[in-house]
């Protein structure tokens, strides 16, 4: 009966044995649902951050080499003459890849909702607009050189980088992106806090058994592993539900924005790499729950002898 046993040293309990030893180690209760809600919100925030990044990047790259030449002259003939000379001069300048005069009809139709149809030679005078594409970006020094060159042939010409007009829009997009990232950090913190509270409660519920396990030579790591395994099932369930909910919401919103047929909204569509990033959200939530539970349990056990 008192045979020497072939002990292997402190070992981790199997999942079934561990759950059997500490049946209340599961966070249980509403915890999978709390994790599901947090993951769903994080998925949405991550999707929004990625879409906003695409919109901002797309707009920046599109406008980076863009400049607009305006010729402001009430005399139609003088304005058209200057415009033709500007188009001709720009077309022969090095570093300019595209020069296109915007038809006056198109300008009139663009501002019609604000000024009505009485524009052009019969009403409010419209400037001539020339869209210019520069290779390698429309920086200040290049624009100054172009401005000086144009001044000699078209004294009424003004050239502005297109990105300059949209700076407030970029700033707003950046702010929204940071807001989404802050939301993700806040949700991660809240999730960790919820797991921390639940793990402490589960630990208190099992305190008596844990003391016995300690007296019998069980170590903190063995106990923490039992809790981790229990938390794993809750976190997996919650994360799966959460990401399914969040991804569905993103899918519906994407379809709605795509239906707007707006140039800016269309550039925010999520690609495969974005979905791969989003798929990290549930994995991160599971890791966060596991590490929080482990650290909570080990910290609390460390206070016991």
């Amino acid at each position, binding site marked *: 009966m*008192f045979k020497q046993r072939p002990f292997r040293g402190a070992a981790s309990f199997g999942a079934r044995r561990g759950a059997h030893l500490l049946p209340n180690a599961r966070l249980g209760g509403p915890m999978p649902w709390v994790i599901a809600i947090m993951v769903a919100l994080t998925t949405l925030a991550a999707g929004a951050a990625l879409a906003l990044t695409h919109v901002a990047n797309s707009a920046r790259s599109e406008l980076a080499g863009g400049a607009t030449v305006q010729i402001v002259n009430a005399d139609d003939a003088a304005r058209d003459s200057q415009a033709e000379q500007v188009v001709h001069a720009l077309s022969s300048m090095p570093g300019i890849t595209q020069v296109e005069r915007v038809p006056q009809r198109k300008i009139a139709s663009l501002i019609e909702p604000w000024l009505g149809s009485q524009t052009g030679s019969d009403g409010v005078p419209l400037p001539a607009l020339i869209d210019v594409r520069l290779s390698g970006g429309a920086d200040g020094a290049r624009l100054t050189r172009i401005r000086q060159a144009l001044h000699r042939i078209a004294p009424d010409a003004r050239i502005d980088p297109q990105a300059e007009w949209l700076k407030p829009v970029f700033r707003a997009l950046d702010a929204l992106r940071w807001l989404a990232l802050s939301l993700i950090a806040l949700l991660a913190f809240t999730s960790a806090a919820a797991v921390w509270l639940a793990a402490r409660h589960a630990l208190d519920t099992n305190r008596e058994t844990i003391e016995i396990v300690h007296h019998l030579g069980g170590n903190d790591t063995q106990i923490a592993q039992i809790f981790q395994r229990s938390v794993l099932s809750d976190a997996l369930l919650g994360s799966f539900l959460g990401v399914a909910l969040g991804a569905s919401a993103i899918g519906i919103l994407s379809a709605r924005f795509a239906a707007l047929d707006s140039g800016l909204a269309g550039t925010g569509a999520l690609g495969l790499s974005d979905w791969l990033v989003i798929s990290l959200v549930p994995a991160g939530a599971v890791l966060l729950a596991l590490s929080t539970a482990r650290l909570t349990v080990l910290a609390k056990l460390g206070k016991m002898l």
Partner: protein
Amino acid sequence: MKSDGEIVRFDNVGLRYGTESEVLSDIDFTLFAGRFYFLTGASGAGKTSLLKLLYLAQRPSRGAIRMFGNDVITLKRDRLPAYRRRLGVVFQDFRLVGHLSAFDNVALPLRLAGLREADLRQPVADMLDWVGLGNRSDARPATLSGGEQQRVAIARAVIARPELLVADEPTGNVDPDMALRLLRLFEALNRLGTTVVVATHDLHLLRRVPDSLIMRLDRGRLADPTGALRYPPRGPIGRTQR
């Protein structure tokens, strides 16, 4: 410094709970490997507190305790489990895990030590047979009588063949025949080299183990032995009383 055969050594140990006065004072003794000790004393004399120090559930307020050759007071927490696995403890209140069967309670020290399931089934079944509970192995503690729970607690304490067995009133809830049977179990373990410390009120029990050594606690201090009681052990294995 560990002398030959020395397994536990208390030097000038005192214990107080919070700001109360000391429940144990100036405790000096040495336990030697392979000996059988009884710890006696009236209720409230400090037996359970002394045992708590022995099974590393409590750190003393002062003094030094060496166990298996090491100072266990300054020992880091994460090294305590390795020492506890060398001990077997029978708690006065049994401290069985309520939701585990008798079998799983007895198997717990073996599982914690990493023994494979296939290797522990037979020894646990044998041990339950030995304490007369072979037919109750699936029973939860709540469905067992006090005596049966005590036997499960004893089976759990001895199953891993500890180097030091500490038992707090292990025969308090069993009939005289079972008490004797359990004592034989402790003696069998002792013959295999386990040092046994049994705290008991039962003076009849002391006479059943002729080679045992007796420590008597009186109001938190180890009393000098009288008559047949021998403390500290005289002869070649004892250390001189200071």
